[in-house]
């Protein structure tokens, strides 16, 4: 038995040079295919990186009350979305604390596909009491590839034999790639130009081959989770169980966050009927959230100095990290919050982190201190609050 492999495994398996795998939602996926993830990262920003994102949970919601159900669950206005639109949205419990985030694709009139990071079937059913709606778990039957990077459009246009320039950011279209019916959405988790291709799991391998072969002359590079992690921090994108805890998994109240505290205020609809958490979010909005989710840029000179103090050149994390790190005020005494992800951006040449800061201290430009460990000793490096995202190329939306 052991762990499940994704429908692309016949292709991704042999590509793995170091057998570096990690778990994602009960599947094994590549941490990196090559021995180091550097080249895979650069492909995201330079050519095109191909990710296997099949482990995402996917649900097909259909029926007369499909939109009503989703509107009851998520914070964005699903009823207003048009066919072909994709919404990124969080969803909350009744106290307005975030449970998860994901996307909702409007596939047709009364047909929606929802993706999530955690299993969500039961929650959807709990919310569907009395509604005329069908909820199908299509996680296993639907495979997905994510093609991200400046050349992703060229590759996909060739593969699909059609122009994709009119497919706008967060829109989707159906297409055929070498005769395989797919849905292409202009979405991704890298903050770059990119697409996700959704396909029936049975057709996964030929789809992989089609895209990989078409992309070869354009430098298409299969990439793993390590490269993705750096890119998503640059893009300022949240990761559940790292940057926030699902309110349904939190063990104590203080582990919960609201969308407003996570920089997702823009997703909280004010123009729809009652939904889970609405009243609490409205009240919080009026009050102002206690926390903000922001970027931090660690001051290079400060870091260099800390290492110089012990006679070493500065050391940088070789991978993105996912631990909780205290953030202090400039005096170094009062704790203002904590960072939850961080790492070196090979593109921006800076040490970035994602952090939760008390609202009073989250203004971009605010100087703070981040704890770093230098030769077994705790030190504090200077850092500045930086608006998210760190990296936001024109081509993402253009």
């Amino acid at each position, binding site marked *: 038995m*052991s762990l*499940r492999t994704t429908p692309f495994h016949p292709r991704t398996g042999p590509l793995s040079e170091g057998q570096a795998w990690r*778990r994602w939602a*009960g599947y094994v996926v590549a941490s990196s295919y090559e021995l180091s993830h550097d080249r895979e990262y650069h492909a995201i920003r330079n050519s095109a990186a191909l990710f296997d994102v099949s482990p995402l949970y996917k649900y097909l919601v259909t029926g007369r009350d499909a939109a009503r159900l989703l509107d009851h669950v998520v914070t964005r206005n699903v009823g207003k979305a048009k066919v072909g639109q994709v919404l990124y949205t969080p969803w909350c419990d009744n106290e307005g604390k975030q449970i998860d985030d994901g996307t909702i694709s409007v596939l047709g009139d009364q047909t929606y596909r929802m993706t999530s990071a955690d299993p969500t*079937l*039961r*929650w959807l059913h709990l919310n569907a009491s009395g509604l005329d709606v069908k909820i199908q778990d299509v996680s296993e039957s639907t495979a997905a590839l994510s093609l991200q990077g400046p050349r992703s459009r060229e590759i996909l246009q060739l593969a699909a034999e059609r122009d994709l320039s009119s497919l706008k950011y967060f829109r989707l279209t159906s297409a055929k790639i070498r005769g395989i019916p797919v849905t292409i959405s202009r979405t991704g988790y890298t903050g770059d130009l990119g697409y996700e291709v959704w396909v029936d799991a049975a057709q996964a391998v030929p789809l992989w081959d089609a895209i990989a072969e078409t992309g070869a002359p354009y430098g298409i590079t299969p990439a793993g989770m390590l490269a993705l992690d750096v890119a998503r921090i640059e893009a300022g994108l949240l990761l559940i169980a790292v940057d926030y805890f699902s309110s349904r*998994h939190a063990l104590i109240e203080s582990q919960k966050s609201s969308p407003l505290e996570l920089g997702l205020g823009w997703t909280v609809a004010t123009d729809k009927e009652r939904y889970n958490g609405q009243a609490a979010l409205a009240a919080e909005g009026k009050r102002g959230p206690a926390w903000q989710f922001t970027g931090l840029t660690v001051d290079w000179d400060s870091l260099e100095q800390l290492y110089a103090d012990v006679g070493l050149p500065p050391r940088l994390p070789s991978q993105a990290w996912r631990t909780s790190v205290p953030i202090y005020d400039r005096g170094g005494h009062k704790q203002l919050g904590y960072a939850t992800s961080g790492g070196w951006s090979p593109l921006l040449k800076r040490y970035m982190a994602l952090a939760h800061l008390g609202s009073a201290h989250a203004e971009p430009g605010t100087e703070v201190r981040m704890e770093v460990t230098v030769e077994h000793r705790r030190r504090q490096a200077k850092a500045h609050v930086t608006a998210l995202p760190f990296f936001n190329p024109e081509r993402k939306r253009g």
Partner: protein
Amino acid sequence: MKQYDAIVIGGGHNGLVTAAYLARAGKSVLVLERRPRVGGAAVTEEIFPGFKFTMFSYVVSLLRPEIIRDLDLPRHGLHILPLESTVTPMENGDYLAGWADHDETRRELYRHSPRDAEAYDEYGRLMHFMAQAVKPILGMVPPDPTSFAPGDLAGLLKLGKHFRGLGAERLHALVKLMTMSSADFLDEWFETDVLKATKSASGIIGTFLGPRSPGTAYVLLHHYMGELDGVFRAWGFAKGGTGAVSEAIASAARSFGAEIRCDAGVSKVLVRTGRATGVVLENGDELPAGIVVSSLDPRRTFLQLLEPEHLPSHLVADIKRFKFRGSSGKVNLALDALPSFTCMPGVGRQHRGAISISPSLDYVERAYDDAKYGEFSRRPYMDIVFPSMIDPGMAPPGKHVMSIFVQYAPYNLNGGWTDAKREAFGDAVVNTVESFAPGFKSQILHRQVITPLDIERITGLSEGNIFAGELALHQLFFLRPAPGWAKFATPVRGFFQCGSGTHPGGGIMGASGRLAAMRILKDGK
């Protein structure tokens, strides 16, 4: 003759824990055990050459971690190995499995019900909280709500605060657990019958109740408490069987200077002017002691070791009313080879975990119906482990031992237990296993069948109740064993109780023994 500070009657694990703590505090302590060996219901015996049986209890999880640390039990040989899984064979040839790996378990549950797979995580979290909520109570001397003494009022207040501190949601869940049947409680979470059956089975263990009887949800929780503290995962198996747990505690007690005397049954506690002064052995010897502690169940402690005139009459009435109603039996087998189950053929990791014979709620409920009317279950609920798969030292190389915990076998069987009835009971067990693992019977080399009457005869546990008194709501906390006498003391000064019949109750937990020792030491100050 040596005058001991304390004599502990009974060398079960609770008596040994009490003795160890008293000795650790500098008291001179003597443990008197009726049998040739210590352990009581936690013993390992080589009944057939080369085959070591965990005669009665077989898995550990409830053993309080503070006892393991305080007595440094690993140094005395305690080694608890994880039990990896639970597999429930179903009557249609399918199975339900819970594996050590979360993702794998989720996937397995998903096969039965996608919704249950998700509910399972939330349920697990809730039970974790509930166990945590109850944990402080396990380590607390129950306050007496009928008393106006400042200590009791303070205790009640503390308890009230603790519960209110849980928050509404958890408080309500706790009320439900205290009052509901395990089937009803699980119904609120799951739809898969076999999952509910297997989970609810831990709610019936040691009770004369079925999964649909209110009160079983509490027993479910009682069995969840071992999943706490992260040290051991769920249930574990002690290397050498549960007898090794007793041996480790005995060794710790001796290292603190306690003496342990086996083949030394106690017939009476000596009482002079309302005060215990020592004990009389079954052979007539009198041994004096400053205090006497009994680890026997409440019926023996109050009605056998003492004369009625030493006790207020309402206490005698309360103890007479205390419910035992043993309902469990045990079948231990020596095997030539491991059985192959229809649902998961061959030999594999399923043999390193528990096999639960609880294919449906109705199956378990029917097993109870038989017992309700005085018969043993024709198709009983069983919890099976293969100790030799976890600790190869339990059987000769290549051979195996199989431990089958069985319910229901009522102590008060219609017509009473006889040798023939015992064998018929053994046959029912073996035949039921055979129905899930054809060919199994031919692998049996030796068999030992233990009825509740045998449990009573061997360990002294009245009516063979495995918890020294049912874990029913009206026999818990300040009502265990009787209102007013739940704080380990007795109406006879210098005579204390420390067995599973006191708060917090049965299982290889040691909590009663430890709390009693604390109470005695505090009294002595």
